[in-house]
């Protein structure tokens, strides 16, 4: 990233490409390392072990997230390449440099979240993530997107402040912030619950869980398509991931079922409200943004479903699969919407008639992404929903099952609201304002196919996710 600033935008794309290739190699190495050893990989920065030093730790969850991130960021880079490159012989402009710098910054911050093992490091990563993500919203500099970005910034900062407050309480109580050490120290004390309440509320605000989603629709809908994809697919997952770490790793066994049900209920409300609001949107990108509000809701079912016992493999696998499948599907859908918007000059759903004939590949990719959101087989979304349903029934919490299935129906509604007019015949063939790049269409399609291929995983708990989970090893014995 530093190198990028020095060399300027002309080389930005190339530097990012090199970094991504290296990053992909590292992601594969982490995945292979965790899988082969069956144990988490741990690195002490500077050779100092906690509590003196800082540890980076990759367990099964981290490995999956690192790999997902590099695929999505790589696709975004390929997609954005043309739009954010500096043509030869022209002066550099602000947008390309900022875009590439922030893309790399967000990527680094996300990896710090996936691999971090220390509550303060998480705070730093969170801030990095926020400061990387906020300017991406207002990349075009218009008044509307600036307002959206400010709204996002303010709310994210409030969230960070709450998180930091909680971190301070933890430090005051136990004198360390390393997750591994804290897990052994925490006891059921009021101060810990106050701290956890503050931190989780702050993180929920950054994840845009209903009813704290005020910033998400304008921000995600206003950003350029490549940035929207990044924000919806990955950035909101960063803070969700931290809630998971806090809930299950920092204070294993402490959070009560009542608190888990609160989060689950908010998730259910998010699914219902997000989907219905998505149905009512007139603009394609706003619709996709509201769909993100809904899809985030499913993630929070992990808490009521996995809190009750030491290791609920099916709930974990379903929850993580929902996270990864949504990342692929939503990135593909936002980028498809971006291509449609560029080709037509607008993204009003009512005027999309005939787009299916003009841009079949893009609409196909959009449809595949939508299939995953609806939970139709074969797709990652289907498998995720089937597993969450199984977990809900297994835990005797059938009410979540009802919400999961209704959410699928509503998703079918908003996806077909786009697909149906897109497939309709028009009297006159649609005139596109700009030719569509085949390469960019291809990138979108590849991402959508990734979401589809996830559906071919076996329908049972994944052993990869068990690696490094506290308590699972004891259970296996």
């Amino acid at each position, binding site marked *: 990233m530093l190198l990028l600033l020095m060399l300027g935008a002309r080389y930005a794309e190339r530097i990012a490409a090199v970094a991504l290739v290296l990053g992909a190699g590292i992601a594969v190495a982490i995945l292979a390392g965790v899988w082969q050893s069956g144990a988490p990989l741990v690195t002490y920065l500077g050779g100092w072990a906690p509590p003196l030093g800082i540890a980076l730790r990759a367990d099964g969850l981290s490995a999956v997230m690192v790999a997902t991130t590099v695929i999505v960021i790589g696709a975004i880079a390929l997609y954005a390449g043309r739009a954010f490159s500096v043509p030869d012989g022209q002066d550099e402009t602000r947008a390309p440099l900022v875009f590439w710098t922030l893309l790399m910054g967000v990527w680094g911050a996300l990896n710090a979240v996936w691999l971090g093992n220390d509550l303060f490091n998480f705070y730093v990563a969170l801030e990095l993530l926020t400061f990387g993500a906020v300017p991406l919203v207002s990349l075009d500099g218009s008044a509307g997107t600036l307002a959206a970005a400010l709204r996002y910034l303010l709310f994210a900062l409030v969230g960070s402040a709450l998180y930091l407050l909680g971190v301070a309480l933890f430090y005051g109580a136990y004198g360390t912030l390393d997750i591994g050490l804290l897990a052994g120290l925490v006891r059921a004390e009021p101060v810990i619950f106050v701290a956890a309440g503050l931190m989780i509320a702050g993180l929920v605000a950054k994840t845009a869980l209903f009813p704290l989603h*005020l910033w998400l629709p304008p921000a995600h809908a206003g950003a350029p398509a490549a940035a929207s994809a990044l924000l919806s697919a990955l950035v909101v997952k960063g803070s969700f991931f931290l809630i998971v770490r806090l809930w299950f790793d920092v204070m294993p066994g402490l959070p009560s079922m009542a608190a888990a049900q609160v989060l689950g209920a908010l998730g259910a409300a998010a699914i219902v409200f997000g989907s219905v609001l998505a149905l009512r949107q007139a603009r394609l990108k706003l619709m996709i943004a509201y769909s993100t509000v809904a899809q985030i809701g499913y993630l929070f079912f992990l808490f009521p479903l996995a809190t009750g016992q030491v290791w609920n493999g099916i709930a974990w696998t379903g929850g993580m699969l929902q996270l990864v499948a949504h990342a692929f599907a939503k990135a593909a859908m936002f980028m498809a919407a971006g291509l449609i918007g560029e080709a037509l000059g607008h993204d009003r759903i009512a005027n999309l008639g005939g787009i299916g004939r003009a841009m079949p590949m893009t609409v196909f990719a959009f449809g595949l992404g939508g299939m995953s959101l609806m939970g*139709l087989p074969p797709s990652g979304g289907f498998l995720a929903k089937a597993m969450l349903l199984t977990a809900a029934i297994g835990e005797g919490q059938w009410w979540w099952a009802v919400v999961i299935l209704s959410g699928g129906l509503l998703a079918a509604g908003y996806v077909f609201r786009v697909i149906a007019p897109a497939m309709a015949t028009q009297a006159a063939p649609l005139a596109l304002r700009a030719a569509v790049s085949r390469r960019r269409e291809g990138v979108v399609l590849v991402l959508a196919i990734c979401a589809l291929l996830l559906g071919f995983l076996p329908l049972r708990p994944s052993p990869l996710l068990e690696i490094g989970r506290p308590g699972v090893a004891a259970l296996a014995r």
Partner: protein
Amino acid sequence: MTGLLLGAALGVPLAMLVASLSPDLRARLPSLLVFAPVPALLAALLASGDTLALPQALLSIRLALDVPSAMLLGVAALLWIAGGQYAAAWLRGRPGGNRFVVWWLLTLTGSLGVFMAADLVSFYLLFSLVSLAAYGLIADDGSARSQRAALIYVGLAVLGEAFLLMAFVLLAQDAAGNTLLIRDVVAALPTSHARDAIMALLMLGFGVKIGLVPLHVWMPLSYRAAPIPAAAVMSGAAVKAGIIGLIRFLPLGAASPGWGGALVVAGLLGAYYGVGVGVTQSNPKTVLAYSSVSQMGLLAAVFGMGLAAGDPGVALVAAFYAAHHILVKGTLFLSVGIIQASGRRRLWLLLVPTAILALSLAGLPFTGGALAKIAVKTPLGSGLIGALATLSAAGSTLLMVHFLRRVIRTAIRPGGDIAAARFVLPWLAATVAAVAVPWALYVVLGIGSVAYALSPAALWGATWPIALGLALAAALARWETRLPQVPPGDVIALTGGAGRLASAASLWMEQVDATLRRWPVAGVSLLTLAVVLAVAMLAGHW
């Protein structure tokens, strides 16, 4: 070895789908459509009783054929072959044919595959495929009417999928061990603690597919909107995904009078309702759709009787009845197509076979329909249910005469002669199959005795309901103008109120959303959440 044929039955249409990616091959695909179902036909003939287990990388799919499913698979493959030939003729020179071919192949793969699926995952996958891919066939012409029909169809289909997914999750939960084989999970169903929920969900899920009243509303709209070859394969073959579902998932071996009775009532209601609404329709395709509602209702009643009595033998006779319906209903839709493309001259050449097929649905003596009625006679019994089922044949006659009168009016081709040979030949082949194949199955599979089928008692039993139906038809012809006009899709028109309610609710939710997204409200929510979470966690330890 023959197990590989099962794989080929899925693999060949999928390979053709992949081929459609290449522009060169794409141009040839319409003429090759006729070959896509051939491996399935061979599998049905040669591989009955075989199993094919695919490796884990392919979802551990298990394909298997027993006698009922092989019969349905083979007959459905025959209809897909005839339909494919007709579609190739229809597609000639039409723009946008590539999309039609892709949807066709997708629907075909699901339709044939679902008969072979032996595990929960592949069944759900293929069932969804045949259900959802048909969307593209219905919406093919892109008109507003087709769009509406396709949306109503897909909405109900997705609803049905949701019911089934829930049922399958509950089934898998209760099965002993880590099995996902349908046979194993259904064996555990009668003793499951969630038995009633599962049965209700299965009936709703498959009820949507077979058009059980009042879940039938998509049928008349879809068949009217779909092009002729698509309507033929949908009404004939694709709908039978619901029938194989009932065969596979209903615990027919364990008597369940309550659920069996419910299915009988719903089925017989549909059998008469389809006739009642069908005679008010003027479009021959819509009339045929209501006839499907009626026929599938009768078949549901057969399943219900089998379930109530705990008679697993009902699977075979129901499959036979369904096999007959596949060929006859599919061919009748092709009839609509060729009669529309014909003039009055020599029209009787088309009308006579069409009339025979139409009355075959009512059990005309010497046709496959008479054999189908004989096959289901035993499970329906000789009591009230049996009598109502027999009387419904009179209703079918009435409806089919109405269909014939309506379809004749569409023959207005200038020049007056019958349609081109490339349309008539696939229809002719399908007609011959619709008459001959039920007889062959009846004899080879030993569904019943030929001597009984040709006995005076059986012939009389088949004849009097038709005579009654003809009398009713004559009465109807006289009083027809007094009938109320029922819009196709009937009760869907009544859902306007529910639609207004839903839109009011969503408007209210939009206002709530706008309120929640105001700064002060969001700030309060955030702090409240922090307090609630802290208190909830504290409360867990006190």
